[in-house]
């Protein structure tokens, strides 16, 4: 049975000008221990989706406009505040892009891990467990480093501390929102390998959010590609990335310069990612698509199954 199930989730954002649907009819499921990736460019709705899983979005300006989120067979929208607080950082932990912004600069990193243990695993709130967690995230000399303040550590080390804090509650699902985007490439590689090792060792599921197709390629079992608030393609990572069916996935893969391909003109996608207040009618990608037909601007195409768990939102590529 799935650990996380999202069914037809829609999220709206309101401002003075109006209300926009920034996540539209999103469904996905993650099995225990699985690594799942949400791919998308800025503004595609991937981070909002991640935060909505434990109702972390402030309302207003955000509001839930329908759908259901179930974690470990609990309906997240039906939970009372107390249970919800235990879920956040408990069964579901988060790490984010910028560890510096999420650590308290005036407390030692050991204290910040202890805080999490006290909250979610009070029986283990002791020094040994802190050292164990720092060892788990491969911080050298953990007995000494737990006395460090955040400013004494490098970006890569801080992200490891963030992961240690996230692991303190022994979560079933770790949501990693662009965890390596701010890091240098050699450190990024170390953090990704660490996440992969922890996933296997601890058996927790990981939901990775990234715009970097290479990261996704190395990490994910299954992926969902988002564009302008909608999933446009969904399926096994190797299949989606090696044989994309939606024109957006295809164009995105073509647009990224690849190492070893020498000097050539890149296949850019024309135009810009549309902002929420001007999502095009019909298929939201039709204004930038090279396959577009007159019908594309009229009705929103549904996600259509394309075999083997694959879903594609394009009536031209996958006719219903």
């Amino acid at each position, binding site marked *: 049975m799935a650990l996380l199930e999202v069914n037809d989730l829609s999220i709206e954002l309101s401002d003075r000008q109006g209300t926009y649907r920034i996540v539209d009819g999103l469904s996905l499921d993650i099995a225990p221990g699985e690594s799942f990736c949400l791919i998308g460019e800025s503004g595609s709705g991937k981070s909002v989706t991640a935060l909505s899983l434990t109702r972390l979005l402030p309302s207003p300006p955000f509001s839930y406009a329908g759908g259901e989120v179930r974690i470990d067979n609990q309906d997240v929208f039906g939970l009372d505040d107390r249970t919800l607080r235990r879920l956040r950082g408990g069964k579901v932990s988060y790490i984010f892009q910028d560890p510096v912004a999420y650590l308290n600069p005036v407390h030692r990193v050991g204290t910040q891990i202890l805080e999490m243990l006290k909250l979610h695993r009070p029986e283990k709130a002791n020094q040994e467990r802190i050292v164990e967690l720092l060892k788990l995230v491969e911080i050298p000399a953990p007995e000494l480093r737990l006395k460090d303040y955040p400013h004494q550590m490098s970006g890569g080390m801080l992200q490891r501390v963030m992961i240690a804090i996230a692991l303190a509650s022994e979560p079933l699902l770790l949501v990693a929102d662009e965890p390596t985007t701010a890091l240098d490439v*050699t450190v990024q*590689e170390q953090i990704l390998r660490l996440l992969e090792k922890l996933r296997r060792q601890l058996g927790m599921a990981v939901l990775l959010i990234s715009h970097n197709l290479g990261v996704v390629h190395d990490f994910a079992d299954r992926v969902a590609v988002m564009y302008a608030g909608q999933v446009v393609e969904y399926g096994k990572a190797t299949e989606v990335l090696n044989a994309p069916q939606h024109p957006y996935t295809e164009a995105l893969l073509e647009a990224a310069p690849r190492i070893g391909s020498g000097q050539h003109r*890149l296949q850019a996608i024309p135009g*810009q*990612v549309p902002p929420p207040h001007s999502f095009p009618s019909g298929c939201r990608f039709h204004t930038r698509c090279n396959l577009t037909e007159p019908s594309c601007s009229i009705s929103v195409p549904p996600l259509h199954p394309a075999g083997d768990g694959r879903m594609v939102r394009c009536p031209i590529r996958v006719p219903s």
Partner: protein
Amino acid sequence: MKLLEVQELEIRYRVQGNGFRERRYLQAVNQISFELDRGRTIGLVGESGCGKSSLARSLVLLEEPTNGEIRYQGRNILNMNRAERKDYRRSVQMIFQDPYGSLNPKLTVEASVAEGIRLQGLMTKPDQIQKEVIRLLEKVGLDASATKRYPRQFSGGQRQRIGIARALAVRPELIVCDEPVSALDVSVQAQVINLLRELQTDFQLSYLFITHDLAVVENISHELMVMYLGQIVEQGPAKKIISQPKHPYSQMLIASIPGNRTEADENWSGSRGDIPSPLNVPPGCPFHSRCPLAEERCRLERPLLKPITPRHLVACHLVATED
């Protein structure tokens, strides 16, 4: 004559020490030499803190080198007179990483792009300037309707185009591009890279292209320098370094690119360690603390950048000259 020649450039910053009267120096750029021809691109890759931005800033006179020479068309830029300096500031322009922070939010696009033209006295009649601004905006893929709008009304990719138009306005010969596409989405990044390539052909521009993304650098550069803690560890034809990196650091960088791992690399032991602080550069080879091949000699003796083929330089004790 080369357009740009940099010889043994050093930039050192004095930083606060721990105790009284203690002086510490941060060697941001250490003994860097390179040349750049008209219409060519030299790429500079390295991780954060390696000194690549210091190097860039010294070329546009935002930073004064501690030692070494920068020659532009044969003239040393550090002892130019006022008029020469003004012309140098025109001919060398810079494009920045953050298209949000590098445009004045209170100026219309027209005012931003026209600023350089006016300051350099290239044109004086308002209608002539306006025509030129529109021509430049069209050149970078925007249209005349952009002139009266403000930066906040544009997306990141469009702002980067405005930044490029602004640099082009004064008809430069060399553009220093400091991570120009790092903040952009993949779909837009390709547009900007293609634009930079077109402009290079149209105007015979030279680029110093700084990035941490090796795939981008391979796409745009003819020559490449790999920088680590202020020093160049490998320098030569971009294609060659990317396909057959010789320095262990270049190898580590290339193997770390996500999505680049192949079956054969599955048992690759991976990158190790963190970049040491530039305040505390290890003695000997700066990379020895993370190098899988390091020997006793690497800890003691700093390797010099030496040719392994006439145009391909590597600073590593363990790499032999190719005959």
